[in-house]
């Protein structure tokens, strides 16, 4: 498989460059919406939709958008698609809208989306950008769902709202609360490290260079690099 084949572009986001567990992007929604499986899947799919649309749109306009004005342009495009997705969710999935609340609006500032726009869509043709968006979106959804399963099953003894009777006496309810989110996220990243035997590609080129939070992430990245 060639390094930049379409299939590779599609699949790399799912594991090798998983935005949540490997690139460590989009931590806020990851922590905030994974208390329930429903919320996590909803958040993942909403982000996927925004990611796909914004990647395609930005890739189409990549030769028109001036270099100096690119970040404001990207933000406007992303905020626009976020609002469109939000309005559709509000209209057709009101329960999900109530679950996600303000985090749906905050997809706008999810660094995965801006990061992919900057790093990929602005340099690649439409089809590849679309595939990249879908791949990253699926990766985001899978990571969120995995975390939500751990938190909801162990924390609330339910799966997607369905009660799991035999776990009921053993549930660790703090897992569904804020501290549990941070704890499970930390443990999952450690688990990915163990599975990949420490070879998870935590390179600057993936996570930080294109992220508007570059300087912020830079601190975290260099620290991580130093310690490994």
């Amino acid at each position, binding site marked *: 498989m060639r390094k930049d084949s379409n299939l590779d572009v599609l699949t790399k986001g799912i594991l090798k460059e998983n935005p949540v567990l490997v690139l460590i992007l989009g931590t806020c929604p990851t922590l905030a919406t994974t208390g329930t499986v429903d919320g996590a899947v909803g958040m993942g799919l909403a982000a996927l939709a925004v990611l796909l649309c914004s990647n395609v749109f930005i890739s189409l*306009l990549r030769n028109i958008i*001036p270099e*100096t*004005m690119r970040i404001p*342009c990207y933000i406007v495009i992303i905020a*626009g698609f976020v609002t469109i997705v939000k*309005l559709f969710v509000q*209209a057709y999935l009101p329960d999900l809208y109530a679950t996600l609340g303000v985090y749906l609006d905050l997809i706008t500032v999810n660094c995965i989306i801006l990061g992919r726009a900057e790093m990929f869509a602005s340099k690649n043709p439409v089809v590849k950008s679309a595939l990249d968006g879908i791949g990253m979106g699926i990766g985001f959804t899978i990571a969120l769902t995995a975390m939500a399963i751990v938190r909801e099953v162990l924390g609330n003894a339910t799966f997607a709202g369905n009660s799991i009777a035999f776990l009921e006496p053993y549930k660790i309810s703090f897992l569904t609360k804020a501290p549990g989110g941070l704890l499970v996220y930390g443990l999952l990243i450690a688990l990915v490290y163990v599975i990949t035997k420490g070879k998870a590609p935590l390179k600057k080129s993936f996570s930080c260079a294109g992220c508007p939070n570059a300087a912020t992430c830079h601190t975290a990245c260099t620290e991580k690099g130093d310690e490994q």
Partner: protein
Amino acid sequence: MLKNIKSVGVLVAICSVIALLLALTNQITAPIIEKNSAAAANKALLEVMPEGKGFEQVDMSKYTLPATVTEAYKETSGKGYVIKLTTTGYGPGMVIMCGVSADGKVTGAVCLSSNETLSKEKEYGKVFAGKDAAAVEATDTIGGATMTTGAYKNAIKDALTSAKVLGGENVDVRTPEQIFQDNLAAALPAGEGKFTKMFLTEVLEGVDAVYSADNGAGYVAIVGEEFAGIEAEAPTAYPAIADAIKAMTESTLTDVDLTAYEGIHKNVTSAKKTAGGNYVLEVKGAGYGIVGGDEYHPASGEYIVIRVSMTADGKIIDCLTVSQAETPNLGSVCGDESFSSRFDGKTEADIPAVEGIGGATMTTDGYKTAILRCFAAVQILEGGAE
């Protein structure tokens, strides 16, 4: 410079395109979102009227509705009304929502919040679905929660009445209590609407009860269904009753020395003999204590004090609870006139059959035991006189 203008131009163009897209999306989704939020607001209303299409709140100030009604909604396609009521069951603040169909039947009822001890009222509303006023009355009560179910039924009946009123019917929404007070006032306008029930010490033939005006203007005697107004000065109507009342109020009571008689129960604390040869006794009733025993209410430490007037041959003329400290809303019902008047005109043999207080067996037993002791006392007093 030109480059900058071009950059800004691109940004403005993108903004415009996105704004256009948003406006289009908003066009599509806005009506659906509005419908969703309306549906969420109507969720409780739909629960009691599942077939309702839409609801609008009714301006209640235009109608005279029962005092328990707090909100009323009209189903927009004319299927009926949804009434929200606040009532008092075992505790205050029981909020009930009831749907009433156009043909005057309950479509559903829910208890939105309550302070009841049994929480069974949460499910109770379901039993009323499809019933009319008469069927509501006949519905089974929740075992052990007479007050709660009584209040619930009354609320449902109020809802049915309200729906009739809102539907334009002319319905008397006064409570039985209000109707009674209004009748008293009508019978004796000089009484200015303030009356107190008199404790009768003599047998007034055909008269069920007598109310005296607080301002001394006169009396209202209740004769069957009739309210007989009797002025204190120069009564014009009902001369026989007027005379009897006059005689009763003017007669003096003679104290009877109970220590002179043996076998009178110690809880009978005083006895007086009237001019007509009747007795007026005061007796302490064992309340929520040990059944049939001599205990007072264990929490309040007080007896139920009852005043009974009785003919010499053992027939109760009038019965009044002077004081009681029974469990509020359960045993405390014995302090209501509606309970004490159940003993009016009864003889010793009738007492066991007198309807008790639901959920307050001990209070009822204590009350009845006290009354029976009065019969026993009168027999001894009469026996001693012979």
